[in-house]
């Protein structure tokens, strides 16, 4: 049993009670789909709710509502976070109703989905919420029965006092428990006693999803609401000049056409204020189709902008960023990256004497890897509802991290935060894109100017050509061998536009005596943003492909070779800043080796590649099989091993890992956002090739390392190593090393 200090204070408790009692949650829930997600259809709702803290309330009939603090974008937090609360509360999961918590970082702290951190960082507070409520119920029962609280036990929503044979349901004690002082210290369950965490529970919104209930902000509809769309410049390097709305203003259903400026002049941006186009044309009308037609008809003039500097605040202090002018092209980007790698690299880490080792090498192998920009392409395009009046702003949108943008919004509207309410709707995908919620500011400004509630909607084309892409990257790897064919030095030189993908202290750093890591970056006016496992999503593939080549050069099995390096990192690590646990890293390789039957012969047509990676505090490895049938690539099976500590909801976690594998294969083979003269070549799914049903693996077998380590990241870690597994398997099948992503850029797009 673990005792932990609770961090709830009386203030947050009272405030939460007021929230729950004041009906604010209900008035905010404008969508049917935002109604409680009920696990058991026949669950009877109670007449009274008693709030024990911000995370839960209990009805007099024993039904419990648990609030999910973080926004849901498909990663399953709306099920898994409440499971953790329910575990420590010790309640039957069938009696739980789940609701999305209101956006209120005073109560819930970190209300963002990103960096695979929801479960890892929420673990303690969620357990504390359940455990402290359980303690309050026990106190209430002890007082009611006149017995010592230590003698009270609980089981699945029931309180027991065995010596006197008294029992009561949580519901019977909820009213009294709500008046108990929040305990200063509470006991947590032992991991071995978990009954909910570690068992598979179905998506709490499953029924709403399969019946098409409105739950995305795209589905929002309100009396008097207008539809708004923006027109943004057609190319990076361009800005708004003028528009002529003569042809548009009289079109049916069109109410207003105007421009908006996203920021006041001299506004200091913070980390997630990324916006590609800060002056936009907005068209407001009655219906989507009418506004779409006006959007096609409007005549807007654009002009090239001059290079400028902007100031960014946020993490790590204030910095100046150069935004160059010009209309950039992918073809030039690749040439520039090659050139920078030769001239502009700065050392990020050096162990031993790599220069000497390369000079004395009997043999050196060198390979250069690259990858294009990628668009996130969430299935639900960017959109946001806004109703801004003189003294209040109501926003609802697909927002991964509204806490990053609420101050921006407040500054821009000139409205204090307490007059602004933001609802986090279920997101139709996120992948990092929705941490940059410029569209929330845009919607608010449009509503303010149009003096009406509006739903701002991006078309797919607006969305895909807006920017905030995964950067384009380049990495050069070198390995030195002595005359006895021993690996003597390792060199990585990595960079990108406009950031480097390097993680200098990750494997194989720590496993090789002579190690050099260098990096560089090139300024650009193409905007970028976090994309599922930023930086790792490229560098893992390059590194794991290169390790495959080294293993081959050494005549070693690729898994055994990695394990040998990891053994060195375990027993006698080089350097002190290695940021991975070599034993856990080796653990996923051992597991994937066993589960994939790596040492067993396969069908002669089947070729396998292995890859592993550490990121977001977790470890993942894949063995991927490929085969070619009449020249057509097929992926019969992928075996996946993951160590992310305790797995809260195993089947849902397996689903996400399977999705990461499919996502990785799709981007490795086809993913590409290329540019010509500042203009994206792809603006919709007819040109942007997404992985489809027939290209997905036939089987993805996911295994988790079983341990009792507190949970670490899950959404991102399985994604980066997929790229290397694909490349290494393709090499086995074709004898050709695939160095540049996408591996199959010319494949036909099927609609």
């Amino acid at each position, binding site marked *: 049993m673990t005792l932990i200090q609770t961090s709830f204070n009386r203030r947050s408790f009272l405030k939460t009670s007021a929230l729950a009692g004041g009906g604010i949650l209900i008035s905010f829930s404008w969508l049917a789909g935002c109604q409680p997600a009920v696990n058991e259809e026949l669950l009877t709702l109670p007449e009274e709710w008693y709030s024990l803290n911000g995370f839960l309330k209990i009805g007099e009939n024993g039904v419990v509502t648990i609030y999910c603090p973080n926004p849901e974008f*498909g990663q399953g937090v709306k099920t898994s976070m409440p499971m953790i609360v329910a575990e420590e509360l010790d309640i039957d999961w069938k009696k739980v109703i789940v609701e999305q918590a209101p956006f209120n970082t005073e109560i819930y702290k970190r209300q963002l989905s990103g960096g695979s951190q929801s479960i890892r960082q929420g673990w303690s507070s969620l357990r504390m919420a359940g455990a402290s409520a359980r303690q309050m119920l026990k106190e209430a029962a002890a007082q009611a029965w006149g017995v010592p609280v230590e003698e009270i036990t609980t089981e699945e929503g029931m309180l027991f006092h065995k010596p006197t044979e008294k029992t009561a349901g949580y519901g019977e004690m909820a009213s009294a428990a709500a008046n108990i002082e929040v305990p200063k210290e509470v006991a947590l369950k032992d991991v071995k006693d978990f009954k909910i965490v570690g068992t598979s529970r179905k*998506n709490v919104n499953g029924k709403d999803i399969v*019946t098409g209930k409105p739950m995305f902000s795209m589905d929002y509809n309100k009396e008097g609401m207008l539809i708004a769309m923006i027109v943004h410049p057609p190319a990076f390097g361009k800005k708004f000049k003028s528009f002529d709305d003569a042809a548009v203003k009289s079109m049916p259903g069109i109410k207003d056409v105007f421009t908006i400026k996203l920021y006041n002049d001299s506004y200091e941006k913070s980390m997630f204020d990324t916006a590609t186009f800060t002056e936009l044309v907005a068209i407001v009308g009655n*219906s989507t*189709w009418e506004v779409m037609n006006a959007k096609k008809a409007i005549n807007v003039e654009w002009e090239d902008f001059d290079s400028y500097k902007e100031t960014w605040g946020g993490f790590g202090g204030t910095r100046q960023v150069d935004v160059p002018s010009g209309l950039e092209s992918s073809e030039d980007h690749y040439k520039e990256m090659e050139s920078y790698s030769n001239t502009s690299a700065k050392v990020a880490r050096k162990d031993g004497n790599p220069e000497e080792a390369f000079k004395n090498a009997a043999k050196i192998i060198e390979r250069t890897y690259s990858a294009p920009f990628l668009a996130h392409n969430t299935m639900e395009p960017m959109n946001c509802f806004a109703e801004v009046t003189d003294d209040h702003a109501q926003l609802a949108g697909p927002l991964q991290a509204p806490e990053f943008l609420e101050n921006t919004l407040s500054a821009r509207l000139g409205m204090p935060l307490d007059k602004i309410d933001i609802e986090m709707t279920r997101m139709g*995908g*996120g992948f990092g894109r929705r941490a940059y919620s410029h569209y929330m500011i845009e919607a608010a400004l449009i509503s303010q100017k149009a003096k009406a509630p509006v739903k701002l909607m991006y078309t797919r084309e607006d969305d895909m050509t807006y920017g905030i892409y995964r950067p384009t990257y380049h990495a050069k790897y070198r390995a030195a061998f002595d005359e006895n064919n021993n690996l003597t030095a390792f060199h990585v030189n990595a960079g990108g536009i406009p950031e480097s993908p390097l993680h200098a202290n990750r494997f194989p750093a720590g496993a090789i005596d002579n190690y050099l890591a260098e990096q560089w970056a090139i300024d650009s006016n193409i905007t970028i943003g976090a994309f599922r496992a930023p930086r790792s999503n490229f560098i893992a593939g390059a590194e794991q492909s290169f390790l495959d080549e080294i293993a081959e050069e050494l005549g070693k099995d690729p898994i055994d070779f990695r394990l040998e390096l990891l053994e060195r990192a375990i027993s006698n690590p080089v350097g002190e800043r290695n940021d991975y646990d070599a034993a856990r890293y080796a653990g996923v390789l051992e597991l994937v080796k066993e589960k994939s039957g790596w040492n067993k012969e396969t069908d002669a047509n089947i070729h396998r590649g292995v890859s592993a990676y550490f990121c977001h505090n977790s470890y993942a490895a894949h063995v991927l099989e490929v085969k070619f049938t009449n020249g057509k690539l097929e992926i019969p099976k992928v075996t996946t091993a993951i160590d992310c500590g305790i797995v809260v909801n195993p089947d849902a976690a397996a689903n996400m890992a*399977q999705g990461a594998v499919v996502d990785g294969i799709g981007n490795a083979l086809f993913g590409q956002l290329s540019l010509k003269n500042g203009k994206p070549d792809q603006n919709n799914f*007819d040109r942007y090739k997404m992985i489809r049903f027939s290209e997905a693996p*036939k089987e993805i077998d996911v295994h988790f390392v079983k341990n009792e380590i507190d949970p670490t990241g899950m959404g991102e870690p399985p994604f980066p190593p997929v790229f290397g597994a694909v490349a290494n398997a393709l090499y086995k099948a074709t004898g050709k090393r695939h160095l540049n992503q996408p591996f199959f850029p010319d494949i036909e797009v099927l609609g």
Partner: protein
Amino acid sequence: MAVFNLNINGKNREIDVDPTTPLLWVLRDHLNLVGTKYGCGIAQCGACTVHLDDVAVRSCMMPVSSISNQKVTTIEGLSENGDHPVQKAWLEVDTAQCGYCQTGQIMTAAALLKKNSNPSDEQIEMAMNGNICRCGTYLRIKESVKKAADMMK
């Protein structure tokens, strides 16, 4: 503008819209049937799939004027209580991640099973190939379609 009488989910609905308005926006904006999703607007992603006389079609490029007396079925009308075998199978397999594309996937799958009650893996892949799932739930969709086929036997 023009008045159209449509048979949607078994009910007659009269709407007055621009004849070029795609069925998708008639459903979403004018009838508040928002289970049918917008994904691409060019019939490439399948999020907007509905049934026209039991055949899966993309509603985002289908002008309302092109529909005469065919029956339109949307996700809201696929079953009375959300208990169509395809919907039940989707829940059993816990298929969805973000959920945005899934109503389109379900409508395509339901139309497939209506035509072919025992599809092979290859037939499922072919039928579902026009529906993109960005979360990558394709394997679970396949499992769900097979489970639904079993339920319908």
